């Protein structure tokens, strides 16, 4: 008897029995829906969180760029910058580092890799429970901690071996740390060299900028860049780019626009928080107590507010500033809310320990439910199974038929469950994140989650029905003769 024929018979039976096993299906649906909901929810949080993070970074791009160009790096910030560049997608940053410092790209790549290791260990020390850190590296953090380990490695590793549940991160665990310590002094001196070269270029860039600012009458760079003629800033940009920094005309355009908005906003808030303005506002709005600049910003749409500010700001400017402020506030709120989702890199499938526990319990309950429903369906069909055996069905046929039936139920229930879980989590996230969800919709991840949940549903019901199917297959055929 081939598998194909078993399949046909099974389908034929299931088609008629589907309604009878609605209970089993409901159990599968709920379990899969719950699984799908958790997975989707965490995917949405991640996707939106990453998107929001990127949005915030881009909204601060001008400030970050200026800091990078004009402020000398510290050892720690250089290490983090290089470590970030060493990750996939950081090729441009590596190239820039090579261009600025004049070091060969191979050297930069090697430094970036080591910086990645240093960051790993530095974070490990930073996140370690304080008591343990005191024992292992006293009060030191970051590079100092590593230096202390290097000074007394035997003592460190002896203490570490006592703390059995404390795992050293990264490749090869503690052995990896030993290997890193071996090259650490050499790495530090190379890193110092890198830092010196970089900061020399930063100083050059600073001097060039100062010269231009002085020529423009001693303005600050945040005021000069958006206000100066385009040709002048373009020349400035070209000068810095010639030093090796990655600074494109597009970067400059973004910088000018962002700085202009920032200046505008700064002027506006300064105006709003002025004592004279505060009193005028109280009179105009007939309010007894003071309102903060924040509260005033929220009411810029008011005609009275626009009248008060009409001398310096057009209604468009006010609208832009208020909208920009609202967007930034919303982003900041989202970032805060999503911090947990972004932080948990170590969690399985982006689920926290508590969620995994809930998931495990719900799966167990479902398995019991399915096993019970399958047992019921088998007792219900005692005579049918026995008759089949009288007609020549082998044990393995009965087993495979029931397993297949269970898997089919798992599949159908899984499909419905996936849709249900998807719908619930999507509606929930849409309410929480609004447009941000659609902007960063993780379609691929959701498809993967759906596949995962579906597989879980099929596997779950197959697992739960192993025992009942086995019992059915071992049933004595003489039961068919029994007369009730």
């Amino acid at each position: 008897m081939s598998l194909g024929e078993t399949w046909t018979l099974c389908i034929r039976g299931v088609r008629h029995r589907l309604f009878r096993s609605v209970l089993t299906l409901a159990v599968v649906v709920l379990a899969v829906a719950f699984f799908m909901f958790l997975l989707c929810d965490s995917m949405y949080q991640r996707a939106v969180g990453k998107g929001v993070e990127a949005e915030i970074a881009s909204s601060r791009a001008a400030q970050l760029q200026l800091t990078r160009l004009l402020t000398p790096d510290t050892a720690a910030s250089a290490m983090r910058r290089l470590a970030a560049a060493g990750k996939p997608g950081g090729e441009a940053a590596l190239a820039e580092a090579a261009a600025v410092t004049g070091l060969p790209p191979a050297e930069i790549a090697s430094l970036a890799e080591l910086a990645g290791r240093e960051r790993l260990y530095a974070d490990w020390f930073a996140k370690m429970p304080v008591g343990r850190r005191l024992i292992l590296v006293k009060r030191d953090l970051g590079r100092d901690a590593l230096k202390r380990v290097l000074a007394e490695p035997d003592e460190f590793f002896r203490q570490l071996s006592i703390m059995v549940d404390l795992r050293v991160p990264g490749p090869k665990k503690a052995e990896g740390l030993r290997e890193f310590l071996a090259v650490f002094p050499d790495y530090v001196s190379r890193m110092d060299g890198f830092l010196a070269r970089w900061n020399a270029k930063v100083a050059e860039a600073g001097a060039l900028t100062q010269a231009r600012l002085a020529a423009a009458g001693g303005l600050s760079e945040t005021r000069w860049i958006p206000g100066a003629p385009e040709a002048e800033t373009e020349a400035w940009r070209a000068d810095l780019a010639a030093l090796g920094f990655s600074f494109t005309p597009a970067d400059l355009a973004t910088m000018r626009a962002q700085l202009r908005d920032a200046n505008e906003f700064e002027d506006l808030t300064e105006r709003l928080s002025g004592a004279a303005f505060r009193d005028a506002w109280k009179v105009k709005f007939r309010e007894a107590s003071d309102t903060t600049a924040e509260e005033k910003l929220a009411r810029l749409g008011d005609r009275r507010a626009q009248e008060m500010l009409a001398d310096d700001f057009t209604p468009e400017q006010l609208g832009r500033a208020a909208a920009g402020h609202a967007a930034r506030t919303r982003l900041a709120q989202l970032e805060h809310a999503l911090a947990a989702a972004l932080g948990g890199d170590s969690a399985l499938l982006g689920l926290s320990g508590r969620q995994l526990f809930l998931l495990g319990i719900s799966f167990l309950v479902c398995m019991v439910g399915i096993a019970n429903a399958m047992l019921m369906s088998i007792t219900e069909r005692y005579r049918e199974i026995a008759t089949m055996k009288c007609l020549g069905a082998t044990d393995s046929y009965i087993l495979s038929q029931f397993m297949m039936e269970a898997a089919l139920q798992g599949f159908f229930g899984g499909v419905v469950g996936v849709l249900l879980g998807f719908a619930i989590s999507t509606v929930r996230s849409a309410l929480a994140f609004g447009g941000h969800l659609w902007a960063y919709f993780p379609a691929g991840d959701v498809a993967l989650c759906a596949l995962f949940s579906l597989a879980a549903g099929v596997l779950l019901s197959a697992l739960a029905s192993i025992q009942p199917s086995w019992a059915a297959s071992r049933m004595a055929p003489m039961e068919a003769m029994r007369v009730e």
Partner: protein
Amino acid sequence: MATFDEAKYAEGREVLVSVHDIRRTFWRGEEPVHALDGVTLNIYRGEYICVMGPSGSGKSTFFNMVGGLDSPTSGRVFIDGVDMAQLNADELAFLRCRKIGYVFQQFNLNTTMTALQNVTLPMTFAGVSSDEARARGMALLERVGLGDRWNHRPKEMSGGQMQRVAIARSLANNPSILLCDEPTGNLDLKSGKDIHRLLHKLNTEGVTVICATHDPNMLAVSTRMVWISDGRIVRIEETANVTIEQNSLGADEEA
């Protein structure tokens, strides 16, 4: 009443099922229950045997032994020369599939399948291709007079029709033995008569029929009758030598 002469009866007949001193003991707690207590019987090819006995007589257990559904505590059962004790679960399934056809009192049709699907189910187990199974299934349904109802489900059929489908199903793989457990027990008189006629016709066509029954009309078409009581065979008669009257038989049964 004439007594049954086995030696004379066996002349020119071929043994199909041989049951030799079988015992079957169940345990009801600590207390043994001897459902079969030393039964020896030869069943010959082409016979139509009726087995009678009150409930609890061991009739069903005897049926299970002959049908390869249960194995005896002691003693041996040969079906078509095969010792049942030597077979494993899959070989038993094979034997049940091809050598024995079962007809149940409750019909035991699969209610989710049509008449034809029910009839071809054992063929599927035997590995017959679906085209051939369909052709053979249709022929069998014609043979039991239900050729036009092949696409009906059990719900849409009368008891007599269901039992005829069940008989067609039992014949699916050309079995040597047709094992009927009170085939008319759930049927009205007229449908019962149809079944007698059908079984008789099949028997004349060469099918060996073993039938548990209390139905005098069914006894009338048999070749031999066997009475079982308290796990033993208490009486064997050739039907030709017995005058069948409803009342006399009833009295025998109660004995």
